């Protein structure tokens, strides 16, 4: 009995000695954030989750951040902005995360940014559209559309279409606008400036239709009917996710097909499933998986790793797109700031990001404090051709041999 106790004691001491000799595992750097893993935006949340998981895995395979493993404390905001704000409060005050990364979507980002500002946290975010509303010095947007996106985005779209040969150029435009804050801002601008409708008129296009619809619309025939009656040369859908596909299906049922058609923020995968209805549809993007984008910092890693993650998690559409690229860029911004200052001090990270161009899959982003941390609008117009999306405008961002049709 006594001998047994002695043996046990020796064994315990030996274990303690062995443990003391093992190198201590460095404490992980914890990045807090939320995404809509459930609720109405869950489909988009899944894309951002795949991008984030792939990025964190890549960082850890490459030795982590500042020699420490990177850990993503991801919570579900259930697609609710108020819940997102409450969870960011919790992540910062209770979980005491080292860093944070933004949630998905305008409303949740706007809510979470207030919390970030309250605690002085650096706040990279990827999918906020109300550019004018963000005055926090430490917010870093990676949907890099410029401060005056209500002017630059529609201008880019119309310039692309007006670059077509005279016989193909649209002369009339019809607007179908979702009553969602971001799409309303892009369509109608603010304070009597910008907005696609106004810009179209300024560029000499005649507006023959301006119709709005509610989120959750199930009957598209009456909207389609108004489009058919107006018969615009260019159909401009300031809508989200599935709006375009639903409208096109209703238009097909009425026997009308658009000659030119643009969609603000479509679900790129759903658009491809609707071929041939969506052939030659356009949208705007910050990344398409072809050159010249593939030459941007980290782009090939992003494409390969995101595809693998998206496939593994069963996403119906596993191609890198504007959403996943914005998400990946946000992680690149955050980790670049930390690596450059070699610290986790938010004031210093922010200063690094404000003073140096940040390498991302979209190119080098320069956050300009004079422009509320936005820079130029670097979007391209992309179009569905031959069954996939291609950047087609401006020329320097277009895929080789591709131009707007």
């Amino acid at each position, binding site marked *: 009995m006594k001998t047994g106790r002695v043996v046990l004691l020796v064994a315990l001491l030996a274990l303690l000695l062995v443990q003391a000799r093992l190198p201590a595992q460095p404490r992980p750097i914890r990045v807090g954030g939320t995404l809509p893993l459930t609720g109405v935006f869950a489909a988009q949340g899944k894309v951002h989750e795949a991008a984030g998981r792939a990025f964190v895995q890549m960082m850890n395979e490459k030795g982590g951040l500042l020699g420490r493993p990177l850990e993503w404390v991801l919570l579900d905001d259930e697609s609710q902005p108020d819940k997102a704000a409450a969870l960011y409060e919790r992540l910062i005050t209770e979980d005491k995360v080292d860093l944070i990364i933004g949630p998905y979507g305008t409303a949740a980002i706007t809510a979470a940014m207030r919390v970030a500002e309250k605690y002085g946290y650096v706040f990279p975010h990827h999918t906020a559209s109300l550019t004018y509303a963000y005055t926090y010095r430490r917010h870093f947007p990676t949907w890099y559309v410029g401060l005056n996106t209500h002017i630059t985005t529609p201008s880019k779209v119309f310039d692309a279409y007006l670059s077509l040969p005279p016989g193909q150029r649209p002369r009339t435009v019809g607007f179908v606008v979702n009553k969602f804050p971001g799409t309303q801002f892009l369509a109608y601008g603010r304070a009597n400036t910008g907005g696609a409708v106004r810009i179209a008129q300024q560029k000499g296009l005649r507006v023959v239709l301006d119709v709005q619809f509610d989120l959750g619309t*199930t009957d598209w025939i009456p909207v389609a009917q108004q489009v058919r009656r107006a018969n615009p040369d260019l159909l401009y859908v300031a809508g989200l996710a599935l709006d375009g596909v639903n409208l096109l299906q209703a238009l097909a049922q009425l026997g009308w097909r658009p000659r030119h058609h643009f969609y603000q923020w479509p679900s790129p995968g759903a658009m491809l*499933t*609707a071929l041939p209805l969506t052939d030659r549809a356009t949208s705007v993007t910050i990344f398409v998986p072809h050159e010249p984008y593939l030459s941007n910092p980290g782009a090939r890693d992003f494409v390969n790793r995101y595809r693998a993650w998206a496939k593994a998690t069963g996403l119906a559409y596993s191609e890198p797109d504007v959403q996943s690229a914005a998400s990946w860029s946000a992680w690149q911004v955050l980790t670049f700031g930390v690596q450059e200052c070699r610290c986790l001090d938010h004031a210093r990270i922010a200063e690094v990001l404000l003073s140096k161009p940040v390498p991302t899959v979209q190119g080098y982003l320069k956050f300009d404090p004079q422009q509320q941390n936005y820079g130029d609008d670097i979007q391209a117009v992309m179009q569905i051709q031959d069954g996939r999306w291609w950047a087609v405008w401006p020329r320097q961002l277009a895929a080789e041999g591709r131009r707007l049709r």
Partner: protein
Amino acid sequence: MVELGQAVASGVLMGTFYALLALGLTLAWGFFETIDFTHFAVVFGFGYVAYELATRGVDLRLVLLLVAPAGALVGMGWRWVLRRLRLDEARSLVFTFGALVVFEGLSKLVWTADYRRIPTAQNPYAMGAATLGPLALPFTQVVSFSLSLIVAGAVGLWLRRSYAGKALRAAVSDEEMVRSCGADVERLRLLIAALGGATGGIGGVLVAMNYALFPNAAEQWVGLLFAAVILGGIGNPAGLVFGGIVIGVAEALAQGLGATAVARLVGAAALVIGLLVRPEGLFPSVLGRREG
């Protein structure tokens, strides 16, 4: 004028589509005193089944035929479960809502939160439309219109005219008395559950033909379908069709007349005004008054 006609036609077609989707809801509420949110799980579950089969090359017309018996079996099975749980109306609402949330979670596991849409190549019927003079009538909505009228009409007649239907209606007021007369009430209820499941399954296929599926898609339909049920009188299939049409036409007219942005509001207003005028619904319940 043509636009107005198209708006009305579209509203009628859409309204009968709402009715087809909600038939199982109104029957369960009326005949089993069950506010059954799992009916949405039946609809969207079969929507996903249609997606899976269509993407594997099965013709959607065949899918429509297959889901009717399958839906009937599911309806009967679920009725059997609910009967054993002996839930009252209020508790059935809470329980079935919880079950719907579980279904959403499971569909997220199986199909992820990503959108699932039957590719156009496998879904040619969704693109087509019949024409009635200058009006376009989408094929899928013509199907739901026909089915709604046939099923609702047949069920309505069966409830009113047949011995079994009368027994079923009487059982709502006094089940003991009906049993003592020798009627097998539970078998009749299973028949009603089968009908609700079958129409829910068919509705699910039509939803998948017209829209993209995602786990929370039911949320878009809950308000609309319950509005149609309440407006039409609980348990009244013919009233449900009319309630659906009222909401569908109100929305379509608002959209057709250019007030697209408030179309949803108009549908809700139709419900509120209807209930202010007739709190029991525009149509009386075929069930008569329940005791206490």
